[in-house]
């Protein structure tokens, strides 16, 4: 069931470097023991996976520019024993730790806050750690995020997304900070409530990946960046003049007008941010703003 390409391992074995003789014997012994442990472990894993009828069948996208056999993208199959509460990320980790250590994906927090494991699972963008296997139909097809270049297996290049996020001056700016270092700026509860959802973005890029417009126009700022700008434009602490500036940035050629209200961004956002609503509000603000000068 392990899916490591056997051919490749053989090749590497034969090309392995020669080790000094003295070391060889000791290493051989160590290796033997280690190999035994490894074997037992894999056997145990398979056993476990088979014995339980409750296993999940995963089909995982594989690609590695450097490894023969993986240069042509392909799908690998894994059978993972199911445990109550198991998520897609848990299943991937299990498959990696028990079958194929080269299975690669980003992950860190396991609690939907670091935003590193947005994946394309059974046809939609989801966080692996926030998706229960039991909610999915089998086989569970796991692919890297669409529209992004694949670096390896499930890892995509995020640079472009970061560039877009950083293109909207994603930082607080105001001309009227209070004097004292202990004086707070005041903000009404309503206003904080208004920007609250927009501040929840975890930069996972699921929204960007789901948007057909972003797919067609690589320069499009994308829903997450617009939402980021919304977060500041709507924050009353920044003041009117800053808002003007922010609207100008958003109105750029590949800015907010590109959005065609497809709603898929809103649907996939793991933090439930009403992206389309924010985008539309920005459009109306921009129109109002422009009308002022007519």
């Amino acid at each position, binding site marked *: 069931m392990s899916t490591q390409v056997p051919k490749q391992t053989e090749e590497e074995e034969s090309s392995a470097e020669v080790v000094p003789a003295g070391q060889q014997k000791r290493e051989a012994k160590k290796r033997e*023991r280690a190999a035994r442990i*490894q074997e037992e472990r894999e056997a145990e894993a398979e056993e476990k996976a088979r014995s339980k009828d409750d296993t999940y069948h995963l089909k995982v996208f594989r690609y590695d520019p450097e490894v023969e056999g993986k240069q042509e993208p392909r799908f690998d199959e894994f059978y993972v024993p199911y445990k109550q509460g198991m998520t897609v990320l848990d299943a991937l980790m299990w498959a990696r730790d028990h079958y194929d250590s080269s299975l690669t994906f980003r992950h860190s*927090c396991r*609690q939907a*806050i670091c935003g590193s494991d947005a994946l394309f699972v059974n046809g939609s963008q989801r966080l692996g750690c926030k998706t229960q296997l039991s909610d999915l139909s089998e086989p569970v097809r796991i692919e890297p995020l669409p529209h992004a270049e694949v670096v390896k297996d499930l890892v995509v290049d995020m640079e472009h997304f970061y560039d877009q996020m950083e293109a909207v001056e994603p930082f607080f700016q105001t001309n009227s900070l209070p004097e004292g270092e202990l004086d707070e700026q005041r903000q*009404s509860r309503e206003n904080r409530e208004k920007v609250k959802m927009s501040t929840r973005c975890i930069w996972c890029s699921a929204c960007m990946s789901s948007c057909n417009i972003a797919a067609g126009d690589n320069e499009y700022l994308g829903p997450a960046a617009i939402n980021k700008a919304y977060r500041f434009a709507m924050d009353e602490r920044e003041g009117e003049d800053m808002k003007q500036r922010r609207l100008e940035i958003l109105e750029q050629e590949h800015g907010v007008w590109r959005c065609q209200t497809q709603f898929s961004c809103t649907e996939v956002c793991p933090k439930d941010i009403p992206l389309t609503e924010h985008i539309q509000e920005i459009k109306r603000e921009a129109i109002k703003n422009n009308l002022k000068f007519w």
Partner: protein
Amino acid sequence: MYTHDVIVVGAGGAGLRAAIAAHEEGADVAIVSKLHPVRSHTGAAEGGINAALREADSWEDHAYDTMKGSDYLGDAPAVETLCKDSPKETIQLEHWGMAFSREEDGRVSQRPFGGLSFPRTTYAGAETGHQLLHTMYEQLVKRGIKVYDEWHVTNLVVSDEERPEDRSCHGIVAYDVQSGTVEGFQARNGVILATGGLGQVYDHTTNAVANTGDGVAMAYRAGAPIEDMEFIQFHPTTLPSTGVLISEGVRGEGGILYNKEGERFMFEYGYANNAGELASRDVVSRAEQTEVDDGRGIEDEYVHLDMRHLGEERILDRLENIIHLSEDFEGVNPLEAPMPVKPGQHYAMGGVETDEHGETCISDLYAVGECACASVHGGNRLGGNALPELIVFGRRAGEHAAGKDLGEPKITTGKVGDFELAEVETPVELGEAGIGEDVVADGGAAADSGTAAASDEAMQRAVESEREMIDSLLEKNEGVQHAEVRERVQKSMTRNVNVFREESRLKQALKDIREARVLYQDVYVGDKSRTFNTDLLQTLETRNILDLAEAITVGALAREEFRGAHWRKNYQERRDEEWLKHTMLSWNDGKPELWYKPVILEGENKTYEPKIRSY
């Protein structure tokens, strides 16, 4: 090779704050981080930031609470610095636009938190850490500070004088995750470690997968002493499959804990006859563990936290986010079934020994955040005291490294003054297995300090040896994989060095760690690719886990008392006469060396007299 004035390792709250401070002091600063900054685990913090902001509150009260909370193992100068600077730093975040929750009058909201005498925990909903992390990253973008993200730092480049106190740090060596190249980063003024927690030493933790304590282990191996490692905080209600935290709010609202038999064990077995479920974190954690150990746990693993009797309306009103957490991460709808919970590793009070400027005994090497131990948390961290630590000490370290004069520190670092060498009886040998013959080179010691040329050369050599080490790991084709080694250590730590500590179990853990170390000699990396090789990175991390697991266990074995989060079966009380001191470990030629240094209880205006810690 890249060169900057100040190099910050890690981009969580502590690293970001340090970088901003150094930048504001005019230094050319760069961050090197294995994760993109916004992926750092600071984002997971929920509760808030303690800061004495209101007229009715004072930093002195905050300091008193913190000292008491630390069970008198905090150093007063550090604690007082934290409490004095926290208000200013918290308002700085507000000025940077952080979306704090607000009061009717528009001021930032504060709420009460365990162990605090005033509601001074400043928060932003249930996502304070997320807001803090993103606000600071935004400031980084604004200033255009260079970030090398997805660069895994593997080693420090430190000169090789005999005594660690004479050494100095030249820079770091890092591995570019995307391309697989190894590069040196030279720091003209200083290296600041801000690599966060070490939760992955345990198999069940609220920490991220990336929290493998790399900074602590690197500094340790480079000669900087590590302090109070045995003090690990456990949280009583975490979801079994992921370690996601279920807040105390559930018990606060009236949630009940049951064992397999359906007994309300907090009362039935007399763990806390008055407070019941509302007893303090460590009491509840130990009660749960006892239930499981005595065979009354569900699936021999967890207990149930039930809130169904509160009624759907009340739950939806006050604990709605809990429903989502439980459904998303555990697949259990808490309106229909009780939630499974068990204790999980949460926070490491110990870390790299530093003074109140964040500097270690190795000059130009700093540590801040969870990886450091200044020490402000002593035996036990109060909720809401870690985030202020990040911003207060992050800033100070950044400024100091950039050359600002912060005055003479009151805390001393390294083996100076009143220290006391010690021994502890261990069942197995400690330290590196098979020193000198292994592929994994030692802690980056390199030529002596002094001239720039010497520094360049030291960098070159360190990079070379790191390249060789990685090449040899990749060339090996057989052996064990890191997952096996890691799992062994993690399991043993959870079984033996958890909320309960008894001598025989601690010794068992040391034996297991030893075995794992020997096994690690044979480690190989299955994935041969240079591109995004997480297999290789985890293999490197596993080594850090081994060193830290051992350090925690040795400290726990040595400390024969019950203080803060550290509970010893045969020593059920705090023993100030003997143990009012910090546990220190130094890496000495591949072996841990145990010593102690006194706690500083003398504050600016008063001395904190140890009192019984009861609430």
